[in-house]
């Protein structure tokens, strides 16, 4: 019974209405892929897809699929993956760490210190814990915090324009 209820809970976001916040965040997630370039070896070819992954509870529902439908980033198609456990994360380029993993966030983030994965989250201390892009909505407008050095360290290049947007907020 508990399992069914959990399943329902988990499935709810998929079948039910996605909150507008996450609709916006879904689009932002996709757009990040457009403004970031991954090192060649992590992409594996011109037509190799860029994998956007969600670790933890998926708050996006179908919004991610809606956001990426018929589009690509830098010529690469986009694929969506959902992971329950950190160990499952493999070959992902852009990972959204859900708020549900908050307790283990630091541990998760530190495990990506050597991988060319763009970590995105919306928890309070995402950046402090090692995350690269923190995306929140302020007055329904996106508010970005970016740790460019963290991204650079793993070989990711974030477009200057994007950095500019986050500049003001940067510490």
């Amino acid at each position: 019974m508990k399992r069914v209820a959990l399943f329902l809970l988990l499935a709810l976001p998929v079948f039910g209405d996605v909150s507008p916040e996450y609709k916006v965040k879904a689009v932002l997630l996709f757009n990040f892929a457009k403004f970031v370039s991954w090192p060649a070896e992590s992409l594996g070819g011109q037509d190799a897809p860029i994998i956007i992954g969600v670790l933890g509870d998926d708050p996006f529902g179908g919004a991610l699929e809606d956001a990426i439908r018929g589009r690509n980033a830098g010529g690469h198609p986009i694929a969506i993956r959902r992971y329950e456990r950190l160990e499952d994360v493999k070959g992902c380029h852009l990972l959204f760490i859900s708020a549900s993993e908050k307790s283990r966030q630091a541990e998760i983030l530190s495990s990506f210190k050597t991988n060319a994965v763009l970590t995105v989250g919306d928890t309070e201390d995402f950046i402090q814990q090692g995350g690269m892009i923190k995306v929140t909505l302020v007055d329904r407008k996106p508010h970005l915090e970016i740790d460019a050095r963290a991204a650079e360290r793993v070989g990711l290049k974030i477009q200057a324009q994007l950095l500019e947007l986050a500049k003001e907020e940067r510490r």
Partner: protein
Amino acid sequence: MRRIRDIPLSRKLNWVIMSTCTVALLLACAGFSSYEWLTFRSAMPREQSTLAEIVGANCAAAVVFSDARSAERTLSALRAEPHVVAACLYTPDGRGFAKYSRHDVKWSVPALLADGYRFESDRLTLTQPVVYDSERVATIYLETDLRAIQDRLLRYALIVGTVLVVALLAAWAMSARLQRVVTDPILDLVETSKAITEKHDYSLRAKSYGRDELGLLVESYNQMLSQIQEREALLRSNRELQDFAYVASHDLQEPLRKIQAFGDRLKTKFGDVLAEDGRDYLERMQNAAGRMQTLINDLLSFSRVATKAQPFVPVDLRKVAHEVLSDLEIRIEQTGARVEVGELPTIDADPLQMRQLIQNLVGNALKFRREHIQPVITLDAHVNGEGLCRLTVKDNGIGFDMQYVDKIFGVFQRLHGRDQYEGTGVGLAICRKIAERHGGQITAESKPGDGATFTVTLLVHNNNGESNS
């Protein structure tokens, strides 16, 4: 309004050159101006499009991530381009997102227009997509005033105008100087011509400036002058000779008359005292004197054709012919000649000279008759359609060899010795002179022993009875 043709040559040439230059320069300026205008009208949108592209590209992230403030910051960089009046960004769904407008302009975001550029009264508006990563992320709208074009064109016009004026002035100055290359020779020729005709001085010559058509004209003009000079000299010597002939023969008459008179006196008073050979000498002397008298008379007649010429009046040649025949009546009777006169017309002529002409010809016909054959002389005339009268005197006398046909009309030219036929050989020369004075000529056709036909052509209508000889 003076006719164009009457304007002085140098001025005309100047105007021709200036008109040509002006038209050429105006066309060139118009051409360049049009080109400038056209290219500017196509260059400007391109330039603005590039500007919009750059600015738009810089705003891509701002639009994508909905950072209006950042976008506006970027747009405000357009301040650097003073001709940009305003600019704005639209989100993909057509909503205005960010804007910029020049400090002196009151402006609000217009509704989204279709992509492309439009020239309005004093604005160029440009709507174009902002593309990022092959996707249209926004639409940028740029509004520029045309002052750039206008300023530029004004400057251009000023320069063109100045250049035009300077060029025309230079053209004027140059043409004023250079047209002389053409007009100087011509004007010189005109001057010389005027001087010549005013002073009747044909020794003047026009100056030749080169070997072009004008030079050739001058050359032939000068040649003509030389010819005129020669003719003048010839005419003068002609006149002098005529006067001389007249005066000389006149003055020669007097001593000749004395010779004849005293010869005659000698014969009368002392004839019987002289021996036979003395009388013979006297006889020969008198004959010689008589011949000289005839010669002088003939010479006087010849010169009188020109000097004693009378103006032309209508002369009935038939009447003249009959008068001549009545004058020659005795000779006609003596020789038993038959003279037939055909239809002779009335022509403009000197009556006395016509008489002389016909008398000489008929007289010759009688003189050069064949022995033992009745002389038959026919006078006839034929007028053709062009006002020419051909008078013919035909005889059946001794004729002459055609190789002498020109000689017989020479002065004092004879084909026979004076013991064969009398006469000084001036009769036909007088006929030719008379014919020429009447605008015609005289020719002859003959075969030895078969008579001769003399043809005189005369103009039926002739109103310059003065200067035909």
